[in-house]
């Protein structure tokens, strides 16, 4: 179940070469998915520093999916750097009491419509279990 549009927002960072056209392909196929998703077009998600993700959660974003081109990344070496950074962000999230599953790194290509919808649904499922960012640490405590 999707949460209310304004309540629980999912941010999707989609690469302009692969995942962003993939998200459009979902539209072209007139498939449907919850509307709490906001797709931001990026050249390469490697540009975001660790604090960007943490800030997003602080601002009230419930979940972030980085949809990259994976190993087919047009910027050679960028994907590896991104993957390493995401690992660091996970560690920082744990420290801050955030469930690291709120951030997901995945590959979506220009025709991966099913993969896109699946990712969105899974994240929705997760955040409806976890509640707002930070809620999990309260629960644990």
């Amino acid at each position, binding site marked *: 179940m999707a*949460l*209310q*549009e*304004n*309540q629980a*927002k999912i*941010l999707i960072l989609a690469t302009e070469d692969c995942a962003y*056209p993939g*998200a*459009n392909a*979902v*539209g*072209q196929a*007139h*498939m*449907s*998915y919850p*509307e709490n998703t*906001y*797709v*931001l*077009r*990026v*050249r*390469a998600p*490697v*540009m*975001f*520093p*660790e604090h*960007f993700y943490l*800030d*997003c959660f602080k*601002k*009230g*974003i419930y979940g972030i999916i980085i949809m990259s081109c994976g190993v087919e990344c047009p*910027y*050679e*070496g*960028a994907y590896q*750097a991104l993957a390493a*950074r995401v690992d660091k962000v996970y560690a920082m999230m744990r420290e801050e009491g955030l469930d690291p599953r709120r951030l997901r790194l995945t590959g979506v290509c220009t025709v991966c419509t099913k993969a896109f919808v699946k990712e969105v649904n899974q994240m929705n499922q997760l955040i409806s279990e976890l509640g707002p960012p930070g809620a999990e640490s309260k629960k644990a405590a």
Partner: protein
Amino acid sequence: MADDNKDKKATSEQKVGVYVCHCGGNISDHVAVEEVCKNAEKIPGVVKVQNDVFMCSDPGQELIMEDIKNGTVDRVVVASCAPDLHSSTFRNAIQRAGGNPYIYEHANIREQVSWVHHGDQATNKATRLVAAAAAKARELQPLEPFKVDAKRHVTVIGGGIAGLKSALDLARKGLDVALIDKSPFLGGWTAKWDRAFPTDDPVSELVTALAGEVLNSEKITVYTCSRITAFEGFIGNFKLTLTQAPPESDAYEDEIKRLSDSGKGFGEFVPLAGICPAGIPETTTTHDIETGAIVLATGFLPYAPRYGEYRYGESKEVITLPELIRIMAENRQKGVGDTLEINDRKIRSVAMIHCVGSRQIPGIHEPDAKGNLNEYCSRTCCSATLHAASMIRNNHPKTRVFDFYRDIRTYGRGQEELYEEASDSKVVFFRFEADAPPEVTRNTGSGDFPLNIKVKDTLTFDEELEMPVDLVVLAVGMEPGNISDLVEMMKLPVGVDGFLQEVHPKLRPVEIAQSGVLLAGTCQAPFDMGETCSAASGAAAKASAILGKGYVELDPFVAEVDLNKCLGTGTCVNACIVEGALSLVEMDVDGEKVKRAQVNPALCTGCGACVAVCPENAINVKGWTLKQYEDMVDMIVSDRILPSQTA
């Protein structure tokens, strides 16, 4: 590069215009466009909101152009379909109205809203996406594509048919070309062949056709006996040093002898050697070349069988296919008899063995001294072998030919016919599995044949067959040429097979990661002559597209350093994924010599790897700054535009 954004205005002063499209119901059936417009008026920085049934139509575009022309807006957001469909339409419209095309941002409310969501939530999401786009738009700066002057000159390394073809194409296009070969000859391995399959063209004609025009072209300077000894620069502006020197004493001995024996002059084709354009230098000289692009046409080396591989080296009766070709070419000049002869020895039967040094399998084949296996198929040897086999049968009907193969790979046009022709001329085929290759032994049985071949033939129900032969010919494959000096100097990418590695076999098949350096022919992979020339022309096409205008126009979306913030930590330089795109340079700041980051926009790909690591946020990719993303997120979560809804 001059920093043209130094006195940029405070962002709050930008005037954003928002234009919302109905898309003839495609959007407006699910998104309340009027409501989106009403909400958009509340977005900070937005000074004007309009809507139209079709924003992409001429009347729609007019709305934007009017507002730009009379100064009402200076940043534009269109909310409509996916950006790849029409952002160029709107950028062009802005440009026609006298604006800079990069002040434009797109909100995708069709593919990502009206086609996937319905009802109030669709309208709300559309509003937020418009707000986010407007926030990004406020931070947009006018940009100009980055231009670097480019030398209308290309350096082609390698004087085989790939190099000749590339050089010729480029010269015909009007570019200046330096053609470099390390040997005294042009024509490469093609010149050392006899006839091309499947057309049966004499290679002398092919090489002469290309080299003749090359040598006559005013646009092409040929440097033989030359090597690149220094390399620097980037696309459009490479600097090379080449050293021309007499060849080492034992190098090209055979070819040079053929040249002097033939009585042919410079510029004439010498069989099995090539065309020597200008003799052999006596002294060593160096030349500096400024060049806009480099075409690598460094070719291949035939596989040299190990000592003892099918008795190669142990028995003089075991030779390679290129050696056989050479013998047959020489024989032809003497006239041919019923039986093939080698050194007056009559060859009554020949065994030809395929896949020698190709399609090697770990665990079955022995790796070379460096531990490498040639796991690839060399692509040309099947056809070359069959062509030679038919030639033997046709010219020497009393010489029998046995052919041992794993798979016959006559894939190309006219090549299956070669296979048929070989069958027709009564070549006998045998098929072996990789783990049970034919066995070559000294013949101890009857007859005066020196060798004996034994094979478990899968075509004959795995029976062991045996035949005595006078000659064994190994169809050797191709190996990468020895260009380790260039690889190291130019940081060329090498694939697992040892050949040079293209960026992507389909998207950019003749390019390598380094801009301005192109691949032509067998330095990339085994090819036949036609395919080599195709690749060579493809590389020439790319080079002339790059240099045709005299300048190289580069994407403006490159990294930019804010010198007010940069502290010269060098973190960004370490994070940069393209060597040379970012560096620390010494500069004068307030009378102090300090190190600061500097971007080479010709090399920067705009990936943003540097952005993430700068502790001062002093570096950003133009048009895609971190602040813009942060502002967009703020708008997405903001309650200012849409009142928070309680669940």
